[in-house]
């Protein structure tokens, strides 16, 4: 059975359209490139100053001057280029990125995202996440539905410091997909195999409505997996 991270990454990859310019964050986001649908080729931007990022290099074949936003070695595809950080964030804030994907600690029904700090526990810093949320045309939040202690990460109202206010457009978990519309807020559009709309309601604190055309068994591992 595929692990949860890859279930989320595989569903997230379905959001991509051929030719889009996308920023893939760290963690689960970095797995998305492994799940690109057939015929979909995207250009990957890395905020530390590269566009046209390819897969990780083979062992011992990395170039010491080529790393991604997590500091991990990368390869570059044909047509790639490098630039300084001011140019990179100009691309981001300037609306030149079609999509970004990021994980989070909390997301709420108003599209608020709290992904960079847990008061008293974690002070890593926001890195480039605030700029990415403010600048990317579509923000996909990809996260496990519940935290390790079983609490919903889709909360009524974010209590941790915000990375972005009202920036979440799509939420993809291993159990469900929600999309935000200006008039309705988040709408439950897909439920993964092995779950029901009732299950989802029980593990989701965030306010949302259920689509009239909600897709059941929409993705995720089937009985044969």
């Amino acid at each position, binding site marked *: 059975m595929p692990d949860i991270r890859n279930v989320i990454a595989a569903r997230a990859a379905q959001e991509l359209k051929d030719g889009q310019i996308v920023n893939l964050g760290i963690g689960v986001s970095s797995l998305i490139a492994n799940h690109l649908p057939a015929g979909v080729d995207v250009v990957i931007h890395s905020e530390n100053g590269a566009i046209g990022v390819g897969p990780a290099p083979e062992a011992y074949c990395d170039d010491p001057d080529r790393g991604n936003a997590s500091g991990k070695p990368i390869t570059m595809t044909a047509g790639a280029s*490098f630039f*300084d950080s001011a140019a990179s964030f100009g691309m981001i804030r300037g609306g030149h990125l079609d999509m970004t994907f990021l994980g989070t600690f909390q997301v709420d029904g108003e599209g608020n995202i709290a992904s960079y700090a847990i008061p008293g526990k974690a002070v890593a810093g926001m890195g480039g996440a*605030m700029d990415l949320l403010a600048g990317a045309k579509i923000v996909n939040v990809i996260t496990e539905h519940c935290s390790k202690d079983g609490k919903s990460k889709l909360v009524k109202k974010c209590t941790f410091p915000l990375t972005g206010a009202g920036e979440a457009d799509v939420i993809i978990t291993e159990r469900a997909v929600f999309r935000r519309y200006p008039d309705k807020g988040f709408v439950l559009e897909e439920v993964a195999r092995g779950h029901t709309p009732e299950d989802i309601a029980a593990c989701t604190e965030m306010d949302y409505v259920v689509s009239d055309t909600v897709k059941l068994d929409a993705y995720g591992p089937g009985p044969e997996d």
Partner: protein
Amino acid sequence: MLRNKVVSLKEAVSHVESGMTIAVGGFLALGDPLTLLHGLQDSGVKDLTIISSTAGYGDRGIVELVKAGQVRKIVTTHIGTTPDVVKAYHAGEIELRLVPQGTLAEQLRAGGAGLGGFLTPTGLGTVAAEGKQHVELNGKTYLLEEAIRADVALVRAHDGDTWGNLRYRGTAMNFNPLCAACAGYTIAEVEYLYSPGEIAPETVYTQGLFVHAVVRADLLYRGSSLDICSPSAT
């Protein structure tokens, strides 16, 4: 015209005094001026305010100055890859100001370009907006962010000439050109050094006018994905 700014490491870092504000290029130790940071360690200056995108990676980069007790404050975007810096912050040994990465990059760029500041949508509705002036312009809200200038900048380039024309390689460029332009005194360490005229003019990224001293980089000590990550990362 003096076209030779090449000096010894010791002479270059003698321009850094205790209490100064230092802009440091690099990102997660990739492109960090590790040779110059070691020079600073040896010089023993203290109470530094460091402006840098990150605090390094593992035990490399600015984290080394923090561990040596030479840093009073860090203005940065991320310290998560340097546990010793997180520890120093929790122990009250350093002050920390976290800034969104695009904002920090633009603050340095603006500082080098003679601008007082700029308007950005980044951070609206978050702690990054607290205490900042909000400006309405053409129906949109922005934060007013001030430019940053430093007393000294430390940068690393792939190669350069003796006048200080610099070129970068791969993602080791990152904040280096921005830091190079924003300081009263800029020191560049270069991995390969040429005479003026040996580098094609159209390939120069940081012009020599920004650079005041050039030092040969220690080629063996670099913060790179190569020696940090291989082979387990693949």
